[in-house]
């Protein structure tokens, strides 16, 4: 399987979980990473920068807050801005100011579902700690279209509502400890790239 996109969803307590996850993804993992994290509704611009700056310390990849129509680049990390939904179009990010979905904007369901519809089986969806069920339906949508779903072990998650809901909504999720997820993803993305390369040369 050749993977094209990694998308991560989390809410409460998500910041430290995200740092651990990002730190575990190796530098040669050449796919764009999208990060959907529930945030304060009224977060101001300066707050946004605080979040990206804080996370930037844990990865060499460039972290940026997504703007509308930002092209997806390999090796970059795109953070969903506060107060917008983030959707994935072919090769770029699209934002929407439509009403919150299950009280959330950005909504993990909206982002995951659009990623699934655009990249099908090329999507790896990761569900981390979360205090609402937003993200579970999106995970199901990715799985239905052949993508891979990884869920942080609910027993170890700071808030287990979302991981549990995601496990209930999917048939074949991988349950993992936070520290395992990054290395695992790096491996399967590399293998996908390698098999593609060998097909090209054969």
């Amino acid at each position, binding site marked *: 399987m050749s993977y094209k996109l990694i998308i991560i969803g989390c809410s409460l307590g998500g910041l430290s979980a995200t740092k651990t996850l990002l730190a575990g993804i190796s530098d040669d993992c050449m796919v764009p990473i999208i990060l959907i994290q529930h945030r304060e509704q009224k977060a101001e611009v300066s707050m946004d920068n605080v979040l990206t700056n804080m996370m930037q310390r844990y990865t060499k990849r460039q972290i940026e807050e997504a*703007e509308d129509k930002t092209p997806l680049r390999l090796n970059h990390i795109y953070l969903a801005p506060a107060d*917008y939904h983030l959707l994935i179009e072919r090769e770029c990010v699209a934002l929407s100011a*439509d009403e919150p979905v299950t009280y959330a904007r950005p909504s993990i369901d909206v982002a995951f579902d659009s990623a699934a519809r655009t990249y099908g089986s090329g999507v790896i969806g990761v569900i981390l700690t979360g205090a609402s069920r937003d993200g579970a339906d999106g995970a199901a949508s990715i799985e239905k279209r052949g993508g891979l779903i990884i869920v942080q072990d609910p027993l170890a998650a700071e808030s287990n509502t979302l991981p549990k809901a995601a496990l209930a909504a999917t048939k074949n999720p991988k349950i993992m400890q936070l520290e395992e997820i990054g290395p695992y993803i790096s491996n399967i993305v590399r293998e996908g790239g390698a098999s593609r390369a060998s097909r090209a040369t054969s």
Partner: protein
Amino acid sequence: MDPDSTTTVEQKDEIEAIEIDLLLDGIYRRYGYDFRKYASASIRRRIWKFAEQEKLATISAVQEAVLHEPSMMDRFVLSLTVNVTTMFRDPAFFLALRTEVIPILKTYPMIRIWDAGCATGEEAYSMAIVLKEEGIYDRCRIYATDMNEDVLRKAKTGIFPLSHMKEFTDNYIQSGGKNSFSEYYTAKYDYAIINQELRQNIIFAQHNLVTDKSFNEFNLVLIRNVLIYFNEELRGKVLDLLHESMASFGILALGKRESLKFSRLESAYEELDSAMKLYKRCA
């Protein structure tokens, strides 16, 4: 036979994509509204939301209803285009407007402002308040346009639910407001009516960014959180239209997470305030 048992998810997605294309083509041919180049992921969500509201099971059913019943089409346009907003949305933007844009506008004898995609008028009235407090409202004309006649009618009345005033007031204070917000409206029953003096220099008019042409030249164009609903090609076309409508050194204001990056206008504008997405025409 249950179609679900034989149709795969991929096939369903493909059928849905065909249905959306047919629906938008049909609407264009029947009514002249052109949604064909809207950003596909969000228009898909809005079409389904409309289908659920109207209790229609498929997008083909939406097509049938919309083509045969003009009143259904009115509701469809409304649900596809209306963006819920507040007065002084993103207070920091209005603060930047006061400190960085108003001093430039003050140098002109007559000031023309275009609020494109004004919906129910919250932004136009917010602008009017800022201009009033800065002492240049009498020299300004605000052209507030939207493609949708229904929302324009509502905008023209200047009537908002009283329950919104708390949020409007909070935003107003954060945006650097100089007075008491309650001075700008009169409360009646459950509603608040914006003062007549704020309404007199606002011209609400129907204009479709996708199908209509440039109609004037402006010193300031506000188009916040509108271009996000268009695909890249259409965004480029609409930006060209705005550019044609821009006076020399005119100022363009985009939404907080929009930019001229990755557009062909990038080189014709300089950033006045990059965080607040204020651009000044330099070519």
